[in-house]
C-alpha cells in the first residue's frame, strides 16, 4: 500500500465518520432554527465573534449566569489580541448571553422530567427563550 492509498483511505474513512456523527450528537453551538426570530441576529454576532479562537462550548458550558460577570468576561475577550470583537459587538453579545443565562437559570430551577432528559437536547438547545 503506497501513501496515495493512505490519503484516499483517510478521506473515505472521514466521510463515513462524518455521516455517522452528523446523524447524532450535539453541535458546539445552538440550533439557530430553534431560536426565536428576534434573537437570531444577536446569536449570529455571538457565534461569529466568539468562535474565532475557541469553540462555542467554552462560553455556553461555562456555567456563568451573572450579567455582571458576563460584562467583565466579554470585556476581557474583547481585549484579547486580534479578537475582532469591537466595542459595538459587545452589545448584541451581552444581550444574547443575558437571555441564555436566564434560560439556564430557569432550567436549573425547574428541571425537565426524567423522560425529557434522556434526549440529546436540552432547553438551551431549543432556543434561549423559555
Amino acid at each position: 500500500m503506497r501513501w496515495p492509498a493512505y490519503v484516499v483511505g483517510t478521506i473515505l474513512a472521514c466521510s463515513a465518520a462524518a455521516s455517522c456523527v452528523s446523524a447524532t450528537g450535539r453541535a458546539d453551538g445552538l440550533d439557530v432554527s430553534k431560536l426565536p426570530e428576534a434573537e437570531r441576529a444577536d446569536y449570529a454576532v455571538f457565534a461569529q465573534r466568539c468562535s474565532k479562537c475557541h469553540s462555542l462550548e467554552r462560553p455556553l458550558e461555562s456555567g456563568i449566569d451573572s450579567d455582571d460577570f458576563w460584562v467583565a468576561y466579554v470585556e476581557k475577550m474583547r481585549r484579547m489580541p486580534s479578537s475582532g470583537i469591537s466595542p459595538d459587538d459587545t452589545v448584541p453579545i451581552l444581550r444574547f448571553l443575558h437571555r441564555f443565562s436566564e434560560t439556564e437559570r430557569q432550567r436549573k430551577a425547574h428541571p425537565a422530567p426524567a423522560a425529557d432528559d434522556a434526549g440529546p437536547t436540552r432547553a438551551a438547545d431549543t432556543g434561549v427563550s423559555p
Partner: protein
Amino acid sequence: MNRAIVALVVVVVSVAVPLLSPPAWAVDRTFSGSAQLDYLFVPTEKGANASAIGFDGFTTEANVKVAADISQHLSANVKLCYGCHGFEADMAYFDYRVRDELNIRVGRFSPSFGAFNVRHDPANHGLSDKPLPYDMGRMLRRTDWNEGVLPSPFPDNGIEVNGTHWFGEWAQLDYAAYLVSGFKASENALDLDFVQSRSTYYVDNNSRPTGGGRASLTLTLSKTSDATLGASGMYGTFDPMNRLTYGIFGGDFSMRFGQTNLRMEYLVRRQEFDTSDASLFKYPIASKDGNFFLKHGAYIELEQPVSGRVTMLGRIDGLYRDGNVAATSELLRRSDVGRATFGSLFTIERGLRVKASTEVYKFSDVDPNGRTVEVGFHLAFVGVF
C-alpha cells in the same frame, strides 16, 4: 519524584478550590481546562514502529486553568499542563491593566509571538499536530531536525507590556513588548536545547534576558469576516557565556469568512554556534557566515465546517534549514521537509470531539532504508470544560 508530588498537589488544589468555593466566587473566577489523548500510527516504518524517529503511540496533553479578577485592574491566571514532559506551569502571572492600551504582565507566560500561539490550547486546534514551524515532539525525524523553528508552547519567566486599541469599529491594533529569560543550551552547543530550556532549574543560564515584541492589525471587513496581519520577533543569547545569539522573526496573515478560516505564517530563526572545534561539524567551517544556520518554516491552513458537527481541515507546511550541521547529523548543509495534512474534527457531544488526520511527509534527506516519504495517522479524543 518530589516534583511530581508537588505538581500533583498543586493540580488537586487548583481543581478543588474552585469546586469547593462558595457560589459568590463564581463572580470573579473562572475555571476551565481540556484533555487530549492522541494516537499516532506510522505505517511506513518497519513493523509500524516509529519510536526511532518520533513519539508514536499514545500521547496526552491535559491542562487546568484558573483565572481570577482581583479588582477592576488586577487579574491573575494560573494554568497547569501535563504532557510528554510531565507537569509544567504554562501560565502563572498577574496582569495589571491600566487601560485597554496598557497592560503589564509579570510572571510565567508564553511571550507574544505569532498567531498560532494565541489559540494555545490543543482543544482550540482542529488537527492533532502543530504546524511544523511550531512543532514540539510530534514531527517525524524530530531528533534530526531538533524540532521546529519555535517549538510551542514556550512559557518563560519575565515581563510583558501589551495593549489593544480599536479605531472605530473596523480596525484593532495590538502590540506587545517583553523581556524573558530566553532559550538555553550548554557551552559550545550547536543549537538551542529545548529540553534544557524547559526543565530544572527554571532560571536564566546567562543573566541576560531575551527581548522581543509583536504587533498585529485586525480589520473587520464585514459582520462575518475579518483579517489579521502580524509581525513578531525575539532576540537574545542562549549560552552561559553570552557569546552566541539567536533571533526569531515571523509574519502571519489570517482571514475569516463566515466560519471558514484561512491561516498562514512564516518564521525564520538565525542561530549562531561555536566554531572553535571544527571536528564537531560535518562540513568545513566557512570563513564568511560559517558561524550560524538559518531555519525557515511556514504553513498555510484552511478550516471549513461542513455541518454543525463536522469540520474539515487541510494544511501544507514545511521546514528548510541552511547551514553547517553536527558531524553526527543525518541532515545535509541544506535540508528540507514538506508535509501535507488532511483531517476532520467531529463533535460527538458539546465538550467532546474527535480529531482524525493523515499527514504525508516528504524529506529531502534519505533515511538508512532509502526512504524519503513517511506517512502518519492521528486519531485523538479531546474533552473541554
